[in-house]
């Protein structure tokens, strides 16, 4: 059994790896009444959301609707003004710093623009979390990075390049490799296909689905790319006016019966969502 098989075994429930299935009856992630304002602008106005363990949830919404703020609140990058955020039944906002950091250690994140560290070569980017946690040595990191890069369809030689030397699609794949390298049990994807051509977008979506399934992880993605949402998600939620206005199967997007969701999914100008345009 090689190192890759070891990790796959660890990812399967009941094989000694981290518990990815969550506690019975408790959603992996639960948000209740989450509110956040920036100055006078109320971005989140009581967000309620449940994400079941092992599911892939896609959060939809227009630009500035609060999708990114929602996941930044879950990640602890933004402190909400009110509400509760539970992960595996623990309210992370009320946990001591160390316990909160321990939960953060089990979370991976793919940023919209990759957010790769441009002062570090690709191999160090990919293994950054493993090195930071002291789980591997720098000597082992190159091999581990080559393995992670292979899983996203990149050659081992890419590991010696710097992020600025990569194309947009390659940067996204490296960022994906970095997000999953430490085998998180929750992964967030922020606009994973934005700025990519449709084919590369489909490739990235395929890699995301593969990675999430291989790890047995719970995934939360935010996007306004409908094709991507249907490919990545099994569930979808629509955020509108600072609240979750609809939750349902991702496959029903465009014919959900909810006027807001269907207008958004079909890209119609007329409907309950009114864009503020100055003339």
């Amino acid at each position: 059994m090689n190192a890759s098989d070891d990790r796959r075994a660890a990812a399967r429930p009941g094989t000694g790896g981290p518990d990815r299935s969550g506690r019975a009856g408790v959603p992996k992630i639960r948000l209740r009444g989450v509110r956040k304002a920036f100055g006078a602008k109320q971005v989140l106005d009581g967000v309620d959301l449940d994400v079941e363990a092992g599911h892939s949830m896609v959060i939809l919404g227009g630009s500035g609707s609060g999708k990114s703020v929602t996941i930044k609140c879950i990640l602890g990058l933004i402190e909400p003004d009110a509400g509760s955020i539970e992960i595996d039944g623990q309210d992370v906002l009320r946990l001591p710093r160390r316990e909160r950091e321990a939960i953060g250690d089990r979370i991976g994140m793919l940023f919209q623009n990759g957010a790769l560290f441009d002062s570090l070569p690709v191999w160090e980017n990919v293994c950054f979390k493993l090195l930071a946690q002291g789980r591997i040595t720098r000597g082992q990191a190159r091999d581990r990075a080559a393995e992670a890069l292979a899983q996203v369809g990149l050659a081992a030689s890419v590991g010696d390049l710097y992020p600025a030397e990569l194309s947009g699609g390659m940067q996204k794949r490296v960022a994906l490799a970095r997000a999953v390298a430490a085998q998180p049990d929750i992964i967030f994807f922020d606009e994973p296909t934005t700025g990519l051509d449709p084919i590369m977008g489909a490739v990235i979506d395929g890699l995301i689905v593969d990675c999430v399934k291989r790890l047995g992880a719970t995934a939360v993605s935010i996007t306004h790319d409908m094709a991507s949402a249907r490919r990545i998600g099994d569930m979808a939620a629509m955020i509108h006016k600072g609240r979750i206005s609809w939750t349902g199967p991702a496959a029903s997007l465009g014919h959900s019966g909810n006027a807001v969701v269907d207008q958004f999914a079909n890209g119609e100008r007329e409907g309950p969502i009114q864009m503020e345009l100055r003339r």
Partner: protein
Amino acid sequence: MGALILDPLAALGRAVLGACRVAGDVGLFALEAISHLLRPPFYWRLFWRAFVEVAWFSLPVVALTAIFTGMVLALQSYTGFARFNAQSAVASVVVISLTRELGPVLASLMVAGRIGAAFAAEIGTMRVTDQIDALTTLSTNPMKYLVAPRLLAATIALPLLVLVADILGVMGGWLIGTFKLGFVSAAYLKSTFDYLEADDVISGLVKAAVFGFIVALMGTWCGYNSRGGAQGVGGATTTAVVASSILILALDYVLTEIFFAQ
């Protein structure tokens, strides 16, 4: 009418409150960074990288500044002292001026331009491209990773740079003294060391350490709090250099009062 009178007062009040808020922010930022220096892990690799950047790569610009300052100082003090036949004091004036004041202040101002700007630009770019948030999601505290090693590196590197600046500045004065102003080399050097006291050098090195801390603090704080893309990073860089330069000059006065006030 009342509004006309009160508006400037309100503006003044806002400015004072804003300044207090910034001072508090910077103070808390510095305390948090120092607390990370005292708690493991410490990123020695990043400390070394920052140290080389501050100490080694600033050496040419600091060296040139020191040599030319020493040369100008010798020339100026000679022409001034010649008016009351006190040319023999040139060597001691050059060395005391350099070690107490000009070495630390000019070297720190040069480093503020180079390093303060570089820290602010690098960390600011990391902020606006989500790299600082990425650090947090990768189980790494950004203050510990980005700020603490830079603060320590600059605080240690500046005194070393100033020591080099002191030596080169004296050498610049000696060059002008012996080759242009007609001093005997040995007599110039004897006069230099006869009037130099350990406190002159030590006070300059302590000032340098404080200025190094200030340069790194303002560079990292401005970068860490930059917002709004390229324009925000540009603004942070400018603010870092201007603020650290002003603080260096203001603190120079305070430290001089502490060291030498009678």
